[in-house]
């Protein structure tokens, strides 16, 4: 084997320029694939990093399960079951309802626990205090926008009490409006999301007012993002619906892998050119060495011996092409990063662009390099099969006669 390849090296060594050109041809094809793939991979990593930065991967959002038209409610027993799961730090349930104030101001109310505030860390008080948990008090905390609206429409501020109507559906769907008195205990800073339009009360109080014995949703906090998926599966096993930021990441991964594959496939067309170069060069080489092939056969070489000799040369071309292609590919991905990043950042603008600015938009993984190398070697061997077979099948006598 070693002798076979050293002989192949000697043969290739006699045609350095030709070998260099053919290797370059393959290497450029490999580099194009690596460059494009690294861009896809880089953007994928960036997107996933941005999701990870803005989402808490240890939080799972649970809502009532709906399957085949039947609804599985989040009852206390389900809540307890989730709390007992391994890796679950705590569970933050909430209930939702809407109340109407005197001047018909619509209030979206959420009954929460202190755990809910631990999950939604952006709920910060501007003035006042949170209500005491578990104590049946009529204290409420207003979201930033609700507080503004109540101040204007209802002329209410911190410490004021006011009456709301709670609409309940009694037996036989008869409507029943139930009055309740609330006291504004605190007002939140702007959170920049849906919480600005919500009113918060203690969950026990809310359940009592609504006459509900199930929860509208809950957040489950796990100790490590690695276990989020398994915990989520268990929750889904209870018949409930569960979401986590990992779902978004999975979607992004799926999409980017698909895009990268398509791009890689089309940039791989340049590899076809490289392969044709190998075929062409090897056919020329067979033609040039026809006499040598005939001679080798006269000296005792079998068809298979001849075939091995030519394929060994292809393997060497493929190996060199793979190494050079990997190196060029790394260079190519650096170039894409240097030239392409400013363009992408300005095109995307805003937060997305700023996120890109920090990292690199291309990522070359060992897997990509290994694939590039393998493509080069396999391509060279496959391209060499036909010429090698042609060489092996030459009639030794005809081959020897040729001048």
């Amino acid at each position, binding site marked *: 084997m070693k*002798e076979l390849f050293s*002989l192949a090296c*000697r*043969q290739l*060594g*006699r045609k350095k320029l030709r070998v260099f050109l053919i290797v370059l041809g393959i290497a450029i094809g490999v580099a194009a694939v690596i460059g494009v793939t690294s861009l896809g991979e880089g953007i994928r990593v960036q997107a996933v990093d941005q999701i990870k930065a803005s989402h808490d991967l240890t939080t799972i959002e649970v809502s009532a399960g709906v399957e085949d038209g039947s609804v599985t409610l989040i009852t206390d027993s389900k809540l307890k079951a989730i709390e007992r799961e391994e890796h679950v730090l705590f569970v933050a349930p909430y209930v939702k309802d809407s109340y109407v104030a005197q001047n018909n101001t619509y209030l979206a109310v959420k009954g929460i626990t202190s755990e809910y505030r631990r999950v939604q860390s952006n709920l910060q008080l501007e003035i006042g205090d949170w209500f005491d948990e578990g104590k049946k008090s009529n204290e409420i905390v207003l979201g930033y926008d609700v507080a503004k609206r109540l101040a204007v429409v209802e002329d209410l501020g911190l410490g004021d009490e006011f009456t709301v109507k709670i609409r309940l559906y009694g037996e036989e769907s008869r409507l029943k409006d139930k009055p309740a008195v609330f006291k504004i205990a605190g007002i939140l800073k702007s959170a920049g999301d849906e919480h600005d339009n919500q009113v918060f009360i203690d969950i026990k109080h809310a359940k009592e007012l609504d006459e509900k014995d199930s929860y509208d949703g809950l957040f489950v906090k796990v100790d490590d993002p690695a276990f989020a998926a398994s915990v989520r599966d268990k929750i889904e096993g209870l018949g409930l619906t569960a979401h986590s930021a990992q779902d978004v990441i999975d979607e992004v991964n799926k999409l980017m892998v698909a895009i990268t594959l398509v791009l890689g496939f089309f940039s791989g067309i340049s590899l076809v050119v490289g392969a044709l170069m190998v075929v062409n060069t090897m056919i020329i080489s067979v033609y040039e060495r026809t*006499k*040598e092939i005939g*001679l*080798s*056969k*006269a*000296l*005792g*070489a*079998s*068809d298979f*011996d001849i075939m091995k000799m030519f394929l060994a040369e292809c393997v060497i071309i493929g190996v060199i092409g793979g190494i050079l292609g990997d190196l060029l590919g790394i260079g190519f991905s650096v170039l894409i990063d240097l030239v392409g990043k400013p363009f992408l950042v300005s095109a995307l603008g805003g937060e997305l662009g700023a996120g890109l600015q920090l990292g690199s938009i291309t990522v070359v993984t060992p897997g990509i390099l290994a694939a590039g190398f393998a493509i080069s070697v396999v391509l060279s061997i496959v391209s060499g099969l036909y010429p090698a077979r042609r060489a092996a099948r030459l009639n*030794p*006598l005809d081959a*020897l006669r040729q001048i």
Partner: protein
Amino acid sequence: MTVETRDLTKYYWMGKEKVVALDSVNLKMEEGAFISVVGPSGSGKSTLLNVIGCLDAPTKGEVYLAGWKVDYRNKKSLVRLRRKFVGFVFQTFNLIPALNAVENVEYPMYFNKEGRSKSERRESAMKLLDMVGLEKRANHLPSELSGGELQRIAIARALANDPKLILADEPTGNLDSRTGKSILNLLTRLNNEEGKNIIMVTHDLESAKKMSKIIRILDGRILE
């Protein structure tokens, strides 16, 4: 090794014209014989050599090498016969330009290793080079050597697998007469000292007469 041909006939078609290269050739060669085949161009000399050397198949007739009938339809057995029993020497030397002298001599051993290690093969190649008087040129490429030297290396190469039969197709055809004589002397030595059977195609009747039995061939027939 004895060589025998029975009714050996070979013809081929050049367009619509039938060319008879060999016409019922019966040849018997004893162990350790040296035969020179002479005749004009196109008389079938080379075809006879190629058929005996298992490079070409006859249209009719049989060849027996050491008493064994050659099966021309069995490609693998032809390869084995070429490896073990036959050494070729050509008019145009046909050394591989990428390999130096000793590597060229070694080359046939690569296809017929017979359990010899690389160093063992190198050693026997050096011995063969020594025998043809070119051990000092071992590391030279063919492009750096003269015609006579190239043919000596080619003869050393023909001996690489220790064949019983040397087939030489006009080995002196491309050499000046003095160099040609030294090549003939080398072949005679191989015949006398090593007991090799030699069949040589040549135009040089005078030199050939001195050292071997002459067979004249014309239009594919042996003239007695």
